[in-house]
């Protein structure tokens, strides 16, 4: 992907850029809001990583102007104001995702991948398939290699989110936001326990595990 990073702190910007380049993206760095807006309008980027507080022009202001021109490029907001409150304000201003500083690079990369490849037609499918796994979205049932697997509604939503983003790493906080629909900070490993219960049910009598753990980051469902 071609990604624009608007961030005035050079070290954070370099760090982010290196992480994204290592994952195979093209990155351009801009260190103030005005230039950021000009670049964003001049060229069609696949994604913009935008700092909340910027010299020349505030991040939210930039976002508002950009959205005002009808530009729908996915925007990931980075902010040192890490409150639920701030988060809501950021998303309302037109941001697509919000990450409070400090963040783990792996978290940022995972979110960028999911955000950048959001497929618009995905929601119309009635069945999701991934390897020998099949998810019936209408009947809320899961089969693996033709065998029906009993899982709870919550586990179904975890699995659905992972499979929709198959091939991309999904972090714990992403799961929390999308599966539980509450913005909060559990500060515990409870998400892991939900996933491990789901995994036990899916992998019973199978050698190959559907959900893989990415150490220190989250989970991934492999496509192959």
């Amino acid at each position, binding site marked *: 992907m071609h990604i624009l990073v608007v961030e005035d702190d050079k070290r954070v910007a370099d760090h982010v850029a290196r992480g994204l380049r290592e994952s195979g993206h093209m990155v351009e760095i801009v260190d103030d809001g005005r230039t950021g807006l000009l670049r964003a309008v001049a060229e069609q980027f696949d994604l913009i990583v935008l700092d909340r507080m910027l010299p020349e022009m505030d991040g939210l202001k930039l976002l508002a102007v950009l959205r005002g021109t009808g530009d729908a490029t996915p925007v990931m907001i980075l902010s040192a104001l890490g*409150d639920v409150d701030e988060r809501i304000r950021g998303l309302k201003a037109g941001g697509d995702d919000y990450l409070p500083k400090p963040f783990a690079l792996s978290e940022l990369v995972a979110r960028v991948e999911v955000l950048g490849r959001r497929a618009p037609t995905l929601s119309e499918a009635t069945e999701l398939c991934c390897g020998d796994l099949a998810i019936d979205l209408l009947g809320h049932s899961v089969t693996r290699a033709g065998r029906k697997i009993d899982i709870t509604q919550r586990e179904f939503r975890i699995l659905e989110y992972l499979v929709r983003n198959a091939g991309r790493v999904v972090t714990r906080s992403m799961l929390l936001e999308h599966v539980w629909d509450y913005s909060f900070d*559990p500060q*515990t490993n409870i998400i892991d326990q939900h996933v491990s219960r789901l995994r036990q049910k899916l992998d019973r009598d199978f050698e190959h595990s559907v959900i893989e753990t990415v150490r220190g980051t989250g989970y991934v469902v492999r496509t192959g």
Partner: protein
Amino acid sequence: MPRLLSSLSFRLALSYAGLFVGSLLLLFGGYYLVAIRQPIEATKVRVQREVEALTALYERRGSAALVARLQRRARLAETPKTFHAFINQGGRVVSANLPSWPAWSERRWLWLEADIFADGNEIDFDSLTLDHRFPDGARLLVGRDLNVVRERQLMMLSSGLAVIGGAVAIGLIVGLLMSRAIGRRIDRLADTARTVMAGDMATRVSVDGSGDEFDHLAQTLNAMLDRIEDSFESVRRVSDSVAHELRTPLARLQANLEDAGGGDGAQIGPVQDALAEADRLRAIFDAVMRISRIETGSLQAAMVEVDLSALLDDVADFYQPEAEAKRLVLSTFIQSGLSLRCDRNLLFQAIANLLDNALKYTPAPGEVVLSGRSGRSGTVISVQDTGPGVPAEALPRLTERFYRSDKRQEGLGLGLAFVAATARLHRSEISFHNDDGGFRVEWLLRHGGGPSRPGLTENRKTN
């Protein structure tokens, strides 16, 4: 009525009415003394003297001489006009120009009506009469007309009552109206103060421009609120910039550590420990900031009507695997259809903190029960466990920041501080109890207890 009596302006009006009635009484009293009492007393003295002279005459020269004197007295065209009646010891009326008198009276002084018809006109006379009895049984009534005074007296009695009654009535009505008018303006002040206390710092008292004392008070209050809001705002700005200034180096630290560890989650031991420590720093920092923001009211709570039963089910569902991993039973008694005006994210986090604590401190095998029910005074959420409880001396300190009753357990000591801040924001009460065989947290959210901030609810949605 007690509320009315306790109203200052009504009490003022009452005392004003009392003062008014008092001065009226003084006025009437003075008039009575000068215009009524004095002429009556003077007449009494005069009649008394006459009776004394007549008695002397009767005793010395007998009844014929008395009658002659009385008749002569009646003929004199003296003012005030004179009246008399003489009844001898046999009960016969010997001489009288009084038309009538009572056959028997205990009082010495009598008012007797003695109207006279002259040339077809009735002239009103009221005789102030001394009823005298001689030792031999004869009776002598002697009096003088005091019709003018008598009429004054009657008039004063009736008009005085009407005037005083009217004054009391007017005083009360004016007092009520005054206390209503003043009360309304004071209520406006109190309403504003309450709204501000609920966290809406932008509210101000309306100033109607009349320039009266209440307007001055309102202006002073508004100026005070401006000052307070300014200082709140500067505290917020400071904490925002502290947040920013601390987070950025923390972000760099984390970035450097990740780079040092080679990235990709494959960090070596010490680096990984340092990363975990950085994460812990951020967690403490976030938690402290969030609590202060809730407490200073700068975190604008998104108060909406929330399906509390579903929310409680969600929290329990979230912690179910944790309970199973610890071989604890997590059960729920949640009344269906519970609904509450609250901030759902804050409430979820607060109840999650309570469950987290209960699961952390309860040894296996044990049980944790989350319950929600609607009581008479409000909705009660409670978390009960079969753990060892908390030492009694620690109970009042549980909600202090960084307080941990059991230092061996890891944790930030901020969980319950967060719960308490959230409870305060929702104007609810939270209490901690050591029960037989367990620890219980009870959270009472009163009906209509949440601060209502319609301006914020409409344009804010939780995500």
